[in-house]
């Protein structure tokens, strides 16, 4: 507890820690979206013609689609012509080692505490860092290559592993899936590609840090992870953005594929700029994340800690196609200030003996608005499928809101599903008990909230769990009372 208290001390007034802007010359396309912009992006990224056509098809589809309006979120209409769809730090070409990266960029990552450098060798984390739209550096690539793991930016993967990428890209989240997925397919500029070969346990945690830096840019990264038979990978994703008055759009797509006996563990700590206390500025985080447990006994586990963004709209989902496949979703989401989050998951049970677990912990403070929206579908052929869902909401203050919208569809009589949801506030008794043992109100709240989230933090890799707890404390700073 004392460590947390120390964090409080030096974090007082540090509302959004990562709100600085890095002065780097960027190569940015003028705002606007049309077929020419898409061709330009594709050309800049030296993509095969096949890819250019794929993007254009997605763009044409997007033009036909209305923006979704079913989520419990409110924002002014987004002017998609006012966004710049490509921004790259200027001297990107041909980076051979970290020494060649702009020192100011490295400095930025250091400020963010990103494990790019030497110290992190010990932490055994391989990092792909995406700055605005472009993947800047991928560490440990050679070491990973020794065991056959491909870990690179998706742009490189499209160039160097075209056949492999095109076989899977868009098969889990088709470009026509939804409005933002279509937009992403048309304009995505970078992201991460991971391939784990058969019977390989990825020797280290893989990690990507995303940062939006340039003004008026959108970020549209795309991640594709393929875990071949019997393989294992744990992937971490962290996100930050500078403090700006206007809203910036982040519309990412993540696709995961797990073959027979493969396991993918995907962890996110999302701390995009949430806007100021009056709701000015902040990131619109409209993300489509979906994994398919294609093989028998495969497993996909999503863990997310969502503390940032003005608006979060994301539903990391699992299609449990293989027999005995397992899907998991563990989430902590915090909304404070004027933040809005509509988040949850979909568990689609298709195979026999498929199991899924959903644990969602929502914390709303101040004027924060939050909804859990989830779907559990047990198809007619999913014999003996099991689901357990637990959704808990904690309310702090009388102007916040927490909603639960679960959809449960069962078409198989051998299914067993249980769904529980509770909404409550921190009880005066709990607070009094802690305070009577000498804790300040803020420490007491922090302790109770951490306890509330424990089940989810336990799913995070160790370093991330520490970071997540710290983030949670910062997020709730000043939100109490």
């Amino acid at each position, binding site marked *: 507890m004392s460590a947390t208290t120390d964090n409080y001390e030096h974090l007082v007034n540090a509302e959004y820690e990562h709100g600085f802007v890095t002065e780097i010359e960027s190569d940015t396309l003028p705002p606007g979206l049309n077929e020419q912009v898409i061709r330009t992006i594709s050309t800049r990224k030296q993509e095969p013609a096949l890819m250019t056509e794929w993007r254009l098809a997605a763009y044409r589809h997007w033009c036909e689609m209305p923006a979704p309006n079913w989520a419990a979120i409110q924002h002014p209409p987004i002017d998609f012509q006012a966004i710049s769809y490509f921004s790259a730090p200027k001297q990107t070409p041909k980076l051979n080692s970290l020494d060649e990266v702009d020192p100011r960029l490295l400095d930025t990552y250091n400020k963010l505490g990103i494990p790019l450098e030497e110290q992190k060798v010990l932490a055994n984390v391989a990092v792909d860092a995406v700055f605005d739209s472009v993947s800047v550096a991928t560490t440990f690539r050679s070491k990973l290559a020794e065991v056959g793991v491909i870990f690179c930016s998706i742009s490189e993967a499209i160039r160097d592993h075209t056949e492999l990428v095109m076989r899977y890209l868009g098969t889990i989240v088709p470009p026509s899936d939804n409005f933002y997925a279509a937009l992403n397919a048309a304009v995505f500029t970078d992201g991460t590609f991971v391939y784990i070969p058969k019977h390989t346990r990825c020797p280290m945690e893989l990690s990507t840090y995303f940062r939006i830096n340039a003004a008026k840019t959108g970020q549209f990264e795309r991640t594709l992870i393929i875990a071949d038979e019997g393989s294992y990978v744990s992937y971490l994703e962290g996100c930050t953005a500078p403090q700006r008055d206007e809203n910036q759009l982040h519309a990412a797509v993540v696709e995961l594929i797990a073959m027979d006996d493969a396991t993918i563990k995907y962890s996110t700590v999302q701390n995009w700029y949430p806007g100021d206390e009056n709701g000015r500025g902040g990131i619109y985080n409209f993300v489509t994340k979906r994994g398919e447990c294609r093989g028998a006994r495969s497993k996909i586990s999503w863990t997310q800690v969502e503390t940032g963004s003005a608006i979060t709209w994301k539903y990391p989902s699992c299609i449990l196609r293989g027999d005995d496949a397992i899907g998991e979703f563990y989430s902590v989401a915090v909304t404070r200030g004027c933040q809005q989050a509509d988040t949850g998951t979909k568990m689609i049970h298709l195979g026999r003996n498929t199991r899924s677990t959903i644990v969602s912990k929502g914390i709303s403070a101040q004027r924060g608005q939050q909804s859990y929206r989830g779907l559990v579908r047990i198809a007619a052929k999913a014999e003996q499928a099991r689901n357990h869902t637990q959704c808990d909401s904690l309310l702090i203050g*009388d102007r916040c809101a927490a909603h639960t919208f679960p959809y449960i*569809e069962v078409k198989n009589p051998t299914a067993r599903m249980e769904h529980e949801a509770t909404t409550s*506030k921190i009880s005066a008794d709990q607070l009094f008990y802690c305070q009577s043992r000498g804790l300040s109100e803020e420490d007491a709240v922090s302790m109770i909230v951490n306890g509330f989230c424990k089940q989810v933090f336990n799913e995070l890799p160790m370093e991330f769990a520490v970071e997540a707890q710290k983030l949670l404390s910062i997020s709730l700073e000043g939100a109490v009372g």
Partner: protein
Amino acid sequence: MMTSVSNSNASIHAMPNTWLSAAPNQLAGNHMTDIKQARSVALKQVLERGLPTVKNEGWRYTSLRSLLAQNFICTPSDDVLTVNEEAHTAIETALQPALETYRVVLINGRYAPQWSYLENLPSGVQIDSLNAVLNQSPARLAAVFTQIADTAHYPFTALNIASCDDGLVILIDDGVTLERPIELLHVSTGSLNQSVTPPMMHPHHCIQLGTGAQAQLIERFVSIENAGVYCTNAVLEIALSPRAVLRHARLQLESLNAFHITGLHLQQAIGSDYSGINIGIGGAWSRTDLITRFIGEQAHCEQRGLYLVGDQQIMDYHLDIAHQVPNCSSQEQFKGILYGQGKAVFDGRILVAANAQQTDANMTNNNLLLSRNAEIDTKPQLEIYADDVKCSHGTTVGQLDPDMLFYLQSRGLTRSQARQMLSLGFAADVLTTLAPEQLHEQVINQIERRLETATF
């Protein structure tokens, strides 16, 4: 869920004209300007907005197609429903079991005094037909009729208000406790003449309990044996004054040819107490909306339900419990038993508005799937804008435990007996709240009979 909603024109069905009254000017109470006005507002709403399709969130699991496929007619010529000798006997049977009650019988949505019993009503209690009250003393319903029902969000309620002409009125004065239950029996025959299009009825009931008044209402929907196709589109408007207490049992026991829609709009003032139990067993296609609005603090609402769905039935229960003021409590418990090709939908929403502190609300929905082709879609929702609340919901879908089945078989019961016994055991905690005893027995017998003849 993730697909976007297309434009509003594509997501409605047009309202079939024949479902509306053919003689709107002659409807009860239309000599009063305000009543006529309220009816025309409702009519406008349902005509302009149309009927929902599955693209409408509240109807995503329940399609109106089978309803629309029937050419229901709201105002059939009198001879269609003239009760002949044969139907007379059938009605007598449908009235069983005879209960010690004040009884109002509606035959095909029309008040039938010859079967009703309203003698010796204590003073301070008025029970009458809606048609009579609207025509003779409409002022008595000024606070209830069209005042509580939400026509903007419930198209079938709007349709009912635009076309209703009869139903039940219960008005109980302040401080009066009515010991003997009131019974409301909907007996339907369907079209007795095969060549004629089936009827759609719009019974409308207004119930107002004064301050501290107490009453018990038993509402049953039954069909005569060999009833034809028909549709009941019932609306209840219930206003509970401060500290009023209403116990309300609703039994939907209609034939498998019946279509059934209910919109129950309940408004509760300070300290009032409502407890309802909803039994759904009959009908080919049914949709029930139970809507509660708290307008005073310290009020309590309980809604319980049991649905038994098989034989290609579709049964849909929607609950909308709006805690708009502080310090109220609500408890919702629904259980479902599904077999055959039955499909059930449960959609329950607890809304806690921004200032509704100290709300205590709990919703549970448990489902038992007994066979291969049954389907359950359940959607318990919490929508909460206040922090000092205790709200929860729990949902389960499961099947009979093989260990339990084996235990019963090892004691000599057949598999079918064991299944019946365990299914009734599953439903027991809901059914115990059903009184009087004869009703309880009637429901249990019906469940047993249904499960005995069911295919699994």
